[in-house]
């Protein structure tokens, strides 16, 4: 139950319609399509697409494998660089990553190779009979991973592969992080996060303990003592606040909170739907929220941003998805006041018009009101400080609120590593988190094995 929206009606659509609207946004390629698409790849050398993939997948090689009917070889190539290659194939904003860089995206060419779709094709159709990676001989080393999101899972898998034993401490009931709780439902369908998790755990040597929250029933000091290395993949558990009064009023909530419920719901027709709603923000989360609300049946969805379209974090591709779902993109408007009805429920929002003056955003005098049954905040996620409260945790150096790490994902505390959204490094993307986890595992392994040699 989404408490702040308990006063709203449920979706009017029948379950079948809703199910269809939340099925695969980008349907998978069939064998023929994959072959045709693979044949478009030029098998570049020092390929720009690889350079643009945060997890450094050898794209020309896996595509050539697909083209030569070696789908398993293709999948193995992908997974060896990115163990969550299946979900990345579905959620990566390829239009700003690999496909943006593809030489066939050049102005003189037609269109980029559909790298994401091909990656999905390979991983989905590999049908391995067992787990495709072997664990090295056991080292006897134990590694604690906090957080079972993409970063933590990637670190765990690579560490297990190196022969270490891994325990993952996860606060929630399910592992997967935002793959399970955050990604738009139509991007990861059919319980993919859990299926991918099962596959990943197939390597062995990884134990997940749920209900373990760092800062609550778990301390970094203890982990540091009990394990040979600790990896923090905590994500960004807090949502940024607007700083307005009535921010707790029924009808106003964080987009991520709603999406979490949406993703877990067995019956979408039981979800509260705000027929008129406002989504505040400009990133992909805002788009996801607005589109999902529209697909649930809301007829009047406004995405409001205080700057212009060109300043939005959401990619053009994402903006197009929003427009195709009848989401209205309102720009140059800044929230001023939450409007409440007599019952104290949200009934709209007052905005001030904004504009630029000498490059600075200025809030003008003009205001307007937008009626709404609900307001969703998607103005960004923040690191949840309550995770880092024990003495050792407090020693961790921070940057912009997040955990400071070097390029080997080492924190300021020796033996403690961190990766993914909770660090100050790189973009907040699933694929980036996977890469961090992988690199951290390599750094941990190098350090532990160095210690072994020295001993």
């Amino acid at each position, binding site marked *: 139950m989404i408490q702040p929206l308990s006063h709203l009606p449920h979706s009017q659509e029948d379950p079948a319609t809703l199910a269809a609207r939340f099925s695969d946004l980008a349907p998978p390629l069939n064998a023929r399509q994959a*072959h*045709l698409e693979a*044949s478009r790849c*030029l*098998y*570049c*050398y*020092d*390929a*720009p697409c690889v*350079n*643009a993939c945060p997890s450094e997948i050898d794209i020309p090689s896996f595509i050539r494998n697909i*083209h030569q009917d070696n789908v398993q070889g293709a999948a193995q190539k992908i997974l060896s660089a990115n163990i969550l290659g299946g979900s990345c194939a579905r959620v990566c904003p390829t239009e700003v990553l690999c496909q943006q*860089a593809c*030489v*066939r995206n*050049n102005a*003189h*060419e037609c269109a980029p190779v559909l790298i994401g779709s091909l990656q999905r094709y390979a991983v989905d159709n590999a049908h391995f009979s067992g787990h495709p990676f072997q664990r090295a001989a056991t080292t006897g080393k134990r590694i604690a991973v906090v957080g079972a999101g993409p970063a933590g899972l990637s670190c765990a898998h690579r560490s297990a592969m190196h022969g270490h034993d891994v325990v993952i401490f996860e606060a929630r009931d399910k592992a997967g992080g935002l793959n399970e709780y955050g990604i738009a439902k139509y991007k990861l369908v059919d319980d993919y996060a859990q299926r991918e998790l099962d596959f990943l755990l197939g390597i062995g040597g990884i134990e997940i303990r749920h209900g373990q929250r760092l800062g609550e029933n778990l301390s970094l000091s203890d982990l540091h003592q009990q394990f040979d290395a600790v990896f923090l993949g905590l994500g960004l558990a807090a949502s940024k606040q607007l700083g307005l009064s009535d921010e707790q009023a029924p009808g106003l909530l964080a987009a991520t909170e709603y999406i979490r419920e949406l993703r877990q719901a067995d019956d979408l027709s039981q979800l509260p739907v705000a027929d008129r709603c406002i989504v505040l923000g400009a990133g992909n989360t805002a788009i996801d929220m607005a589109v999902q609300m529209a697909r649930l049946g809301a007829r009047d969805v406004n995405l409001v941003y205080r700057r212009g379209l060109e300043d939005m974090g959401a990619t053009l591709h994402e903006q197009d998805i929003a427009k195709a779902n009848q989401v209205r993109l309102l720009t140059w408007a800044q929230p001023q006041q939450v409007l409440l009805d007599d019952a104290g429920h949200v009934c709209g929002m007052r905005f001030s018009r904004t504009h630029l003056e000498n490059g600075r955003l200025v809030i003008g005098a003009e205001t307007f009101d937008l009626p709404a049954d609900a307001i969703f905040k998607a103005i960004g996620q923040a690191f949840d400080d309550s995770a880092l409260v024990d003495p050792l945790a407090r020693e961790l150096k921070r940057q912009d609120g997040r955990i400071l790490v070097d390029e080997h994902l080492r924190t300021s505390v020796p033996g403690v590593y961190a990766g993914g959204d909770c660090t100050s490094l790189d973009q907040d993307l699933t694929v980036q988190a996977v890469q961090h986890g992988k690199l951290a595992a390599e750094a941990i392994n190098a350090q532990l094995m160095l210690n072994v040699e020295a001993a």
Partner: protein
Amino acid sequence: MADLSIVFAGIKAPNPFWLASAPPTDKAYNVVRAFEAGWGGVVWKTLGEDPAAVNVSSRYSAHYGANREVLGINNIELITDRSLEINLREITQVKKDWPDRALIVSLMVPCVEESWKNILPLVEATGADGIELNFGCPHGMPERGMGAAVGQVPEYVEQVTRWCKTYCSLPVIVKLTPNITDIRVAARAAHRGGADAVSLINTINSITSVDLDRMVALPSVGSQSTHGGYCGSAVKPIALNMVAEIARDPQTRGLPICGIGGIGSWRDAAEFIALGSGAVQVCTAAMLHGFRIVEEMKDGLSRWMDSQGHANLQAFSGRAVGNTTDWKYLDINYQVIAKIDQEACIGCGRCHIACEDTSHQAIASLKQADGTHVYEVIDDECVGCNLCQITCPVQDCIEMVTVDTGKPFLDWNHDPRNPYHVTA
């Protein structure tokens, strides 16, 4: 518009595009459709003595490119599997109905004088414009003492050609098999026998692929296979060379050549004509796309001729022959080097890795701040081999530019570095 009509070995045709002797010319139904579509002539599917040949199933297989475009096909069909009588009757009727088109009859009978003496008057009686001797069919028939077996023995070629000239007044075109080491030997033999023209190439012995599950080559007949004849786009380079070899052979100078092998576009045809062909024949391209392809071939050829100021085919026929020579006469002092058009370059790195791994390390890969690479030719290292230009996916992105070496023309014959050089 340029005049596409020709007179080839005394045979008139409204255009040089003929269908080669093969399934497209198997019977009246096909040939009439071809004439309706605009083909200038046909060489009727090879006739033989009764009883007619019997074919197997399946019959064709293909070699594919990356996009499943057919590069070449392979067939294990024999000559016509219909009776001589039916074929002759149809030929007579078609020629009567289409007097302006060239109708050539392809023949293959045993290598005995009697056989030729018997069949030739029957063919001549149809009103056909000429005969083509099929010495090339590389499968099935040789085991019966015909086809490639004849084409591979110069004395037989000469002998059979002479019989045909003796017992028939029609122009005789000798179709050559490429399954020999030096095509000129066969052409010279035909020439000695009195041939009015040669046509080439017939198909090349081949196996296109192997079914790795069933462990049988393709095409397969049940669990077995046999080699077949290869044709289509992939054989064009081989055919062009053979045509050029004959065209520039002093011993067969002036012998009309009908170019065959991998022709599918007006440009292919123009190339064969430039290397000395007076007409061309097409089989595979028509088999893949139907007879309608002749329309674009005719239109493209005449527009190109207009753009070049060629009023008719003689205007450029054989024009590239004189520029085709032996390696030893090439200018050793001539030098080209690759030049990359950075505007057109899409940064795929293929030129670099090709040159780096397999050629002369003459293309530098310069890493940029954003992680991409810029590729630059190192002029001093480039030998002008064309490999980068070939592997570059962008047409005209790499140009091979002539550099002025300041040195005079020098061929290997006269090069002092040649231990056997000619001293003047």
